[in-house]
């Protein structure tokens, strides 16, 4: 049965696997969006992270060092954005696009300069982020398929969602951050250093973006290709919009992206056009965005009309 072989239990892990690189990117976008910075540059940060991770992992053979350095690379990229945007008043969309292009150019250059090839680079010497194997589950086919062989980052991604939710909605810092995003002038009046807050979230965003890239190049696969992020950063931004800057909901958005991605791949194997399935998350996100803003508009109109009624 074709249907059964497309929708079976292995799809669950396939979904999580495909969703994780997007998840980190989405979290990187969520944290900046909370401070009202739309981080288009996630794609570029991710790409730089991916390249750095492969480079360090190849030359030192240490995946942990590679992860750390790629986070630092992510921070550097996000700091360029932050300084340009906050200090020199660059338009955030413009600088984000510029960063994406910059990352594409320097990784293209770096792959030739440091790794000595063009196009794509793969080597058995690249140390991968380890996968978690629990021998206890190996005996059971389903448990083995569901819970075994998770990459460390896949687990960490889910933990990160929880941490982020806690940070944003249960700490003073999170409250301040959200107030900066809502109404910076009021936040400033309340004694919050708005620019400092913005720099902080950009650093965090750089760390997460770097992680996303490292996971993509030495966790998800063990290679680097030109433009290997291939829109995953943008998908992260889309997932962020899907979840309306809530990390939990953004995660659900990522899972949706991952789900359709895995289904699309399987459909293609049976000769069905996968494009329509692959298109779905984008259309769903646009619809979700539209519906949420439409409802907001209706609500606002109601509030306004009641105000007018009271006045008259």
């Amino acid at each position, binding site marked *: 049965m074709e249907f059964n072989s497309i929708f079976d239990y292995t799809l669950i892990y396939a979904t999580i696997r495909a969703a994780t690189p997007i998840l980190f990117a989405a979290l990187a976008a969520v944290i900046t969006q909370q401070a009202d910075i*739309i981080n*288009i540059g996630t794609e570029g940060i991710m790409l730089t992270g991916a390249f750095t991770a492969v480079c360090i992992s190849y030359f030192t053979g240490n995946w942990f060092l590679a992860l750390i350095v790629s986070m630092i690379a992510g921070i550097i990229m996000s700091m*360029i954005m932050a300084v*340009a945007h906050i*200090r*020199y*008043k*660059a*338009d955030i*969309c*413009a*600088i984000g*696009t*510029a*960063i994406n*292009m*910059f990352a*594409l*150019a*320097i990784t*293209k*250059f770096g792959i*030739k*300069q440091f790794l000595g090839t063009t196009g794509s680079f793969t080597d058995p010497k690249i140390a991968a982020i380890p996968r978690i194997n629990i021998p206890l589950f190996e005996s059971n086919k389903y448990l083995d398929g569901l819970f075994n062989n998770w990459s460390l980052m896949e687990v960490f991604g889910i933990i990160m969602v929880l941490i982020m939710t806690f940070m944003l909605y249960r700490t003073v810092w999170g409250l301040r951050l959200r107030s900066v995003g809502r109404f910076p002038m009021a936040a400033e009046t309340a004694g919050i250093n708005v620019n400092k807050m913005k720099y902080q979230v950009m650093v965090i965003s750089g760390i997460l973006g770097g992680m996303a890239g490292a996971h993509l190049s030495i966790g998800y696969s063990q290679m680097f290709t030109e433009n290997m992020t291939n*829109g995953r950063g*943008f998908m992260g*931004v*889309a997932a962020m*919009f899907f979840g309306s800057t809530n990390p939990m909901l953004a995660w659900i958005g990522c899972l949706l992206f991952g789900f359709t991605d895995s289904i699309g791949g399987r459909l293609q194997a049976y000769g069905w*056009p996968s*494009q*329509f399935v*692959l*298109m779905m998350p*984008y*259309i769903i*996100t*646009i619809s979700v*965005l*539209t519906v949420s*803003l*439409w409802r*907001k*508009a209706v609500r606002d109109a109601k509030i*306004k009309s009641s105000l007018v009624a009271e006045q008259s």
Partner: protein
Amino acid sequence: MKVTNKYVNLLFTIVISMLIGAVIMLILGFNPLEAYFQLFKGAFVGKLNLGTTLQKFVPLLLTAMAFAISSRVGVFNVGVEGELYLGAMAAAWVGFTFVGLPAPIHIVLCFAFAMLVGAVWASIPGALKAQWGVNEVCVTILMNYVATFITSYLVNGPFSAKTGVPQTPAVAAGVKLTQFMKPSQAHTGLFVAVAAVIFIYWLMSSSTIGYKFTSVGLNPFHAQYTGIDPKRTMIGAMLLSGAVGGMAGCIEVLGVYGYFLDNFSSGIAFDGMLAALIVKSDIKTVPFMAFFLAVLKSGALGMERYTGVPKAIVDTIIAIFIIFATMEALLAFNKKRKAKKDVQASSGKQSEQGGLKNGI
């Protein structure tokens, strides 16, 4: 005074980024002077080189224009890439379906349909933003993917030429634009594009429509107060922007390829967008910037061939250039001028708030 400042700043950023590029080349042990010499030689000297530059210039010019038009009304249209793809597909479809039509009518039909498709596609994010304030950056980015998937499905499925390569059948021989600088691929689409740009410039600078666009872009509340419908204007600008984007796709298909090839663009529209971003969507300077980028892009090949300097360095220079160009406050050396700017900015903010209050 203000105008000249802008151009001086632009030149200054060009010089800075080229200097940074030179420093990178020096560190890597190349001779930057020779590299830049080869870069410009590779872009201008010889029929093939000049032709390639012109061929690359056409889509850059049109996509940059498409972006600049939408930013007139304050819409950041990242979706030109999608419009380009759909326009290209539409032109290819008309081109290979209605074989037998007289060539002039056929060409016009190709352009018209491509522009229509592009315009309709672009009006979706425009309408969503105008109606409910849906973030257009996000919607257009997402719609780019949808557009690529649609064309990818069509070119692999119903419209496939069945040759193993994902491409449509070739368009009728009559509709292919003449390539006038053999062996390069420069084609007569160049003149169409230039004519279109001149028309757009006229439209933006001396027509009522252009005035409406600018007015809405500067302050929608004020525009509404003076009797301009900001929503309709916004959608109108997106329609025009989409039409230009679709035209770019049409010219690419009819001029360069003669068929629709899957993923043929690889980010042309993004380069065009950057050209517009650098000059902050100033319609007058956009063509020059687009040409400059085309020169850099086509000259990079020659530079790599003759000096061994990797092509990616040119991309890096362009990126650095853009990063500097986007920083509005970077070149305000003079403290007085900076202070003045701050005052202006804050008064601008106040007036914006006033507008908000009026709107409410």
